[in-house]
Every structure is written in structure tokens, then in C-alpha cells.
């Protein structure tokens, strides 16, 4: 998902750039406070780990492979601010050195691949830590769901950015449906790998899992899988939220692409729309149009993701303050 140059317009590039700069700057200050003089070697080496982990592909199905995003994992292991800084550095170096992601696209690439999945994923993690049992198994379960959510949120953020800064008249609805739809599936891989990896770390050095810092040894040792029922309820909660959003499309139109075809017919029958005005101008099928609905969805999604990210930042800051410095 390393977007190249020219993918989104200049305004979006600048705006997301400013947001990313500010957020990473904030996170950086926390990194220094949390890790002190260990910041450079520890963050550096874990950045190398995340980079290496992203390089390797894992099997998805019948020979196709996928790649790990790793932001949620980094946030759960290292804490959200350290996680964000680490993944940001990975994204920047990938862009500068490997041409993986455009230089002018850094603003939204950092936002989508570091800030949103790390902070947002962490917020989901903490949410589910409350709901799931306070055990090692609970931590693993929360990681699973958080990692999944992080991937979906990342694609949602991308879609919302497309709404504002698209350089081609592909509707928000179509992009959203395609991106988020695909990433709901990809999220499974991220979820399994992140949860398993956290489990492995818990087994040998539980003190390295920042997200499990509140557990004592007995609780950590309880690695019983979260009871299927609890897990199912939790997963259901998450799915309901996502389904509520996606179902909006089903109500009005069974197929985003089909809608485009209708528009085509509509357009050919003589109606003119000034594309310059609105990306949705060509989506009015029966006059009332999906514009308000699409915008509502975009708004809901944008709010959701922003809320999640903000929660992640807030929790991260609060944790740092209440944490006994001696345990760092």
C-alpha cells in the first residue's frame, strides 16, 4: 500500500504531510521519555525487525502471498508512540531508498501505514483488553482483533483520502468498497501472524510485551485460548460496526460498478455534469442521488478512524504518565 507520487492531489499530500509531521513529532517526544538513552539502539533494532518482517511474504491461499503491515504489532509490543516512530522510519526509508512509495506521497503513506494502524490498532487492542479475560490468552485475542482492525482502518483512511484528493473520477464508494473489502480479507493474515508472534514473545520474554505490562506471572501463564463464546462476541461487535457501514451500499445499490454503468447510461442520455464540482456529481441515479449517503458514510468512517487514532494517542500519553519509570 505504498502509494506512488501523483496518486492523490497536492492539497491532500500537503495536509496529510502536516498531520503526519505533527503526530510523529509528538510521538518522538514520548519515545525519548520512555526509552531514555536506550531509545536509539532499541528502536533502531526493532525498526530493522519490522522492516525485515515486512519484506517476507506469508502464504495466503494456493500460492498467493501477502505482506505484513506490522504497525499494530509494533504498537502492542513497544507501546504506541515507539511503534509509530519505528514504523514511520521504516516507511520513510522504504520510500527514499527503495522507491517503495513516492516522496511526495510520504504524508499519506505515513498516515495510512504507520499512524492510523499503530494508534488505531492500539486503541482497539485496549478496548478488547477490557472485554477479554485478563490473561495471556486475552492479550493474544486482543492482538488478533486489533491487528485485523488496524489493516481495515488503514484502508479506510486511504479511501477517505481518496474522497478529498482523488486524481481520477473513481467514486469514493467504489474505492471504499474495493479497498476495504480486500483489506477485510488481508486483515486475517495480519491478525493470525500478529497474535501468534505476540504469543511467542509472551512465552519467552513477557516483559517485552508492553501491552501486557499489567499482568502478573500467573495471569501471563494463563494461555488458555479465550473462550470461543467470548471471542465470538468480541469479533461480532467489530463486524457489526463494519457491516453497518458497508451495508449502506447494499441498500441503495447492489454493485458499485453496476452503478457506474448506470451512470454511463445516464450520462449518454444527455445529462451533463461538471466533474470539476464534485467527485459525486456523476452518481445521481434517480435525482436524489447517493451523494448525501456516500458523504455520510465517508463522514462516519472518517470519524471512526479519527476517534480510534485519537484514543490511541491519548491512551499512549496517559500510560506513559502513570507508568512507574523503574519498570521501563
Amino acid at each position, binding site marked *: 500500500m505504498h502509494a506512488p507520487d*501523483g496518486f492523490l492531489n497536492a492539497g491532500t499530500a500537503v495536509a496529510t504531510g502536516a498531520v503526519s509531521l505533527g503526530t510523529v513529532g509528538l510521538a518522538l517526544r514520548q519515545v525519548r521519555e520512555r526509552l531514555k538513552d536506550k531509545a536509539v539502539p532499541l528502536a533502531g533494532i526493532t525498526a530493522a525487525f519490522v522492516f525485515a518482517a515486512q519484506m517476507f511474504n506469508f502464504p495466503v491461499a494456493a500460492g498467493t502471498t501477502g505482506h505484513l503491515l506490522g504497525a499494530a504489532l509494533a504498537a502492542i509490543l513497544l507501546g504506541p508512540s515507539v511503534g509509530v516512530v519505528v514504523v514511520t522510519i521504516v516507511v520513510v526509508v522504504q520510500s527514499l531508498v527503495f522507491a517503495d512509495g513516492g516522496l511526495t506521497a510520504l504524508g499519506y503513506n505515513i498516515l495510512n501505514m504507520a499512524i492510523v494502524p499503530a494508534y488505531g490498532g492500539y486503541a482497539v487492542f485496549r478496548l478488547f483488553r477490557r472485554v477479554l479475560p485478563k490473561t495471556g490468552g486475552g492479550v493474544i485475542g486482543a492482538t488478533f482483533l486489533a491487528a485485523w482492525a488496524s489493516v481495515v482502518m488503514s484502508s479506510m483512511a486511504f479511501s477517505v483520502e481518496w474522497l478529498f484528493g482523488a486524481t481520477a*473520477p473513481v467514486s469514493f464508494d467504489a474505492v471504499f468498497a474495493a479497498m476495504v473489502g480486500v483489506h477485510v480479507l488481508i486483515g486475517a493474515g495480519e491478525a493470525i501472524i500478529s497474535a501468534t508472534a505476540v504469543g511467542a514473545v509472551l512465552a519467552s520474554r513477557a516483559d517485552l510485551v508492553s501491552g501486557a505490562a499489567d499482568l502478573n506471572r500467573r495471569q501471563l501463564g494463563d494461555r488458555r485460548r479465550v473462550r470461543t463464546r467470548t471471542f465470538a462476541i468480541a469479533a461480532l461487535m467489530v463486524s457489526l460496526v463494519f457491516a453497518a457501514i458497508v451495508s449502506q451500499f447494499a441498500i441503495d445499490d447492489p454493485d458499485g460498478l453496476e452503478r457506474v454503468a448506470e451512470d454511463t447510461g445516464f450520462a449518454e442520455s444527455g445529462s451533463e455534469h461538471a466533474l470539476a464540482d464534485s467527485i459525486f456529481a456523476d452518481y445521481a441515479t434517480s435525482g436524489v442521488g447517493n451523494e448525501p449517503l456516500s458523504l455520510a458514510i465517508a463522514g462516519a468512517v472518517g470519524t471512526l478512524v479519527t476517534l480510534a487514532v485519537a484514543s490511541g494517542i491519548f491512551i499512549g500519553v496517559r500510560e506513559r504518565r502513570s507508568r512507574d519509570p523503574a519498570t521501563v
Partner: protein
Amino acid sequence: MAAEPKIVAAFLTVVAIALTPREAIWAFGVYAVLLVALVRIARIPYGFVMTRLVAVAPFVVFALFIPFVAGGERTEVIGVSVSIEGLWGAWNIYAKALLGASVSILLTATTEVSDVVRGLGVLRVPAVLTSIALFMVRYLELIADELGRMRVAMSARGYDPRWLSQVRPIANSAGALFVRSYERGERVHAAMLSRGFSGTMPALRHPTATATNWYAVILVTGAFWVIAVGAMVVA
């Protein structure tokens, strides 16, 4: 040549390319010629550039779909209905993505990674970030090698996963690798303390950019901007 001028040049050049109106096809042609010339001057093998450009491929493929999916007025190309705006949109992404990536690749091919990071430091990126990035670059090969060796060891024992459900062993080893990496980080920290480290990296002398370096930057960047502005004016 020091890295900072090259980084500034790369960044400004990509911005110029990104701001160029897509309708000015001639401008992109000139960019391509300029870039090829730079590749020749820097004596970079074309193969090197081509293999790196593969990274942009997925998005170029996405761009190819746009004309079919996009809305707006349509036209026919070899009997297939495509959106005109969509065609422009696809061209826009295609041209800028490839050219932008080429500029990056030019930077990479002519500058050591660690010099790039240090160049960023000269350009006022906070020292903490550049120090972390330098460490990352230093230990990346080591860790990637370890990961690679783990995979080889697992395949040697018949592990050939094709489905997501079989991914647990890799993920387990990834977790173990994280622990080992972290512990190495702690040892490196001890080694740093042993050599007098007190929290800030010492300032070591590095080649600084000369005036000639900066003139070259202004020349190259200027060329691109002249074209970009020209295209904006004409459009």
C-alpha cells in the same frame, strides 16, 4: 558528493513532476529524457533502474483499471468504452508514479543509504530519528538474514506452507526473532555505554556539501521546474 544536496534536488524535482498538469504530455516526455540523461551521466546500469521500478507496478496496474471504472463522459478505444477523465487520471498516475520513482532510484543509486540518512540529519531532521534510522540500516541485513535462515531451516524440515492456516510456525519464529533482536538491542546499548555513551550520539565529521554540489542541484532542479511552470502556464 555529500547527500544533502541530492536529497533536496530529489525532493524538489519530484514535487515539480507531481505538480505538472497531466495534459502537458510533452512535459513528461522532457522529464523522461532528462532522467535518462542523468542516469547516463551517473553511469547507472539501466537494469538497476528497471528492477527497482517494479515496486511501482501494483499501482500502475491499478491505474490501468481506472478508465474502465471511472465515471464521466465516455469514448471508445478499440471498441471498448472508457471514461475520458479516467484515461487522463490513469495517465496522470502512470506518468508521475514512474517518473517520481525514477528520481528516487537515481538518488539511491548514487548515494549510500547511511549517507542518505545522515544527509537528512544535516537537513534538520531530529538526530534521534536519524540515529534510529542508521541503526535500522546497520542491523537490517543481519536480521533479514536470520529470518531468511529460519525459513530455510523450516523448509529443510519439509515446511512448505501454501495456506494462511499453515502460517503459525513462521509467526512463532518471527516472535522469537523479535525477542532475539530486542536482546541484541540491549547488548548494543551495553556496548555503547561501555564506550562512554551518555544518551546523545557524538558528532562525527562528515564530508560537507561544496558550492559546486549546490550549483548542480540548482541546475537540475531548475530545469524541471522551468518545464513544470511552463506546462502550468500553457495549460
